[in-house]
């Protein structure tokens, strides 16, 4: 049986590699809390490559404006149609910033308009229970001093299943710490990453 491998996608525009520690932390959390057979290290795959089809869950992040190439757009369209799940996190956590505007526009082109994911969605109960929807990040609450909290994640469905999950919550920063430092955290803040992986593997 194939094991779960965390896959970060590399796209031509922007800074796809802005959160290099996310993969290690999600892998660590999945291995820590579940019995899912998880590869010990993640992979990076070009979005335009056929290789993305080997990873039904892919992660995309960045700060800068996103403009997919035609090949990236075509591959993403194919990927979503076949049942892949794209998780996108805006590394800025702002409102209507350059990443958000450009990326949601690109996603709308391949997946249709994004809609709010209700707080009762199975995504928030697939492993841990998040009664109030997506957990807030320290960067939202006080990290930047703006208390700018995004209540919902956005998403697009294919055949009744989430195909795109879009976050403004800056999990890319929240989950970007060295796994060794996890012991200093009272409540593991990567738990929602576990939910995301379990949802992708079971729904």
């Amino acid at each position, binding site marked *: 049986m194939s094991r779960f491998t965390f896959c970060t996608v590399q796209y031509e525009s922007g800074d796809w590699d802005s959160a290099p520690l996310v993969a290690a932390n999600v892998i660590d959390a999945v291995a820590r809390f579940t019995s*899912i057979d998880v590869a010990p290290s993640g992979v990076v795959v070009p979005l335009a490559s056929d290789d993305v089809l080997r990873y039904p869950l892919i992660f995309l992040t960045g700060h800068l404006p996103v403009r997919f190439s035609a090949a990236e757009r075509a591959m993403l369209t194919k990927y979503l149609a076949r049942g892949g799940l794209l998780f996108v996190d805006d590394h800025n956590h702002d409102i209507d910033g350059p990443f958000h505007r450009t990326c949601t526009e690109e996603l709308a082109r391949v997946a249709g308009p994004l809609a709010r994911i209700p707080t009762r969605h199975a995504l928030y109960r697939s492993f841990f229970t998040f009664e109030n929807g997506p957990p807030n990040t320290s960067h939202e609450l006080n990290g930047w001093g703006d208390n700018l909290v995004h209540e919902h994640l956005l998403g697009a469905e294919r055949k009744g299943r989430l195909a795109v999950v879009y976050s403004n919550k800056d999990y890319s920063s929240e989950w970007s710490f060295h796994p060794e430092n996890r012991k200093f955290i009272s409540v593991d803040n990567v738990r929602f990453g576990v939910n995301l992986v379990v949802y992708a593997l079971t729904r």
Partner: protein
Amino acid sequence: MRSRADRGRVVATLLQGVAIACAAAAAWRLAHPTVAWPSAVTVDGDTIRAAEGVASRATLASLVATAPGESIRVRLRSVPSARVRGQLRALADAGAAIALTTPTPFATPAVAARVVDGPAPMATVLVAGDSSATYRIGDDAGALDSVRGATALHLASIAGSAHVRAPGVHAAAPVRTTTIGTRVFVAGAAGWESRFVVAALEEAGWRVDAALAVAPTVVVRQGEPVLARERHVAAIVLPGAPASTVRGLPAFVRGGGGAVLVGEAVQAGATSTLRAGAPGAVLAGEAGMEASDDAPRHGLDLVPIASLARGAVALEARDGTTAIAARRIGAGRVVQVGYADSWRWRMAGAEGAPDAHRRWWSALVASVVSPPMPVRPRLSPFDDTLDAAPVAALAATLPPVRIAPASMTPVRDAVSFPDASTLAVTALVAFMLAWVSRRLSGLA
């Protein structure tokens, strides 16, 4: 210049000749009471045109009633419908001599319609035909598509019968569906295979309850948490299935439930008592083959079914090993599938891979659901016209069709020959007129 008497003699002689001829003809008719019934009809599909001289509304059916034992020359412009063939066959059975000719060979399509069983019937229509001909494909509800030559057409749904039409030709085959329950139970571990099996089955219309192990004490459940015969028609057991969820599987199968056991799921526990064969060492798939059109499962890793249990039968082989096998246990059926990670076929396969993967899984599950109750589609009054291969049916039931150019085999009008009484009356009248003519001419 001829006198009046001379003219009268000539007329009288002519009338006498007519009278003698008619009398002779009447005598011949009396001696041959059954004159050959010269029928000739032209058939075009379901249409019969009688030649002039035969009652204009005549059909072959009426010929059976009125002229049994006669000869019929039938000129075929196209393959006759089953109804017309039935009438011709009835004539032949009644002793009529049937002669079939056609000016040109027929286009010869044949059609078969196969439903991939499942809650949402998915049909494959197979058409065999002339590679240069274009055929219109349809069902009882109307036209669906057009194809050229031999092809397989996959349809999301089909109503009643599959029809193939070309100019002058119509072949049709009924589509059979099965009435089965649609609720199944999937047990496995959280993983891509479990996820895509559930997705494929749901997309195919199955109602899926699932129990997928995520951690030693955590099972993600969907729908009803426990496998039960009164709810589920089949169970799909994938590697890593929680032992608690499949404990009742043997009783479930013996009670008539179906089971699809996948890969290494048969190694231990309750499933090992049901397996069709022992799992062998994993054989790696051929790299890239999952993207091929013709043998996508050659690209998948395979847990070969090394030795079959008594009563088990191999359903599919790969590289000399058994890939899929089945057996009956009690009232239930078990299919053991050796392929692992079929999700790779769906994700990385050729263009139609998601649909093919979905149909394959749906068919696997349907194959273990019992009892499959075949249900013929509701038949219309014209269902006797359903012919999968009308030319073959023609050849099977009637004399061979002789190819005869139109110019050489005109359909001749039937000749209406007077009967004996008419001839006798005519002869009598002619004799009387001859006698009168002679009297008036002073000859008698």
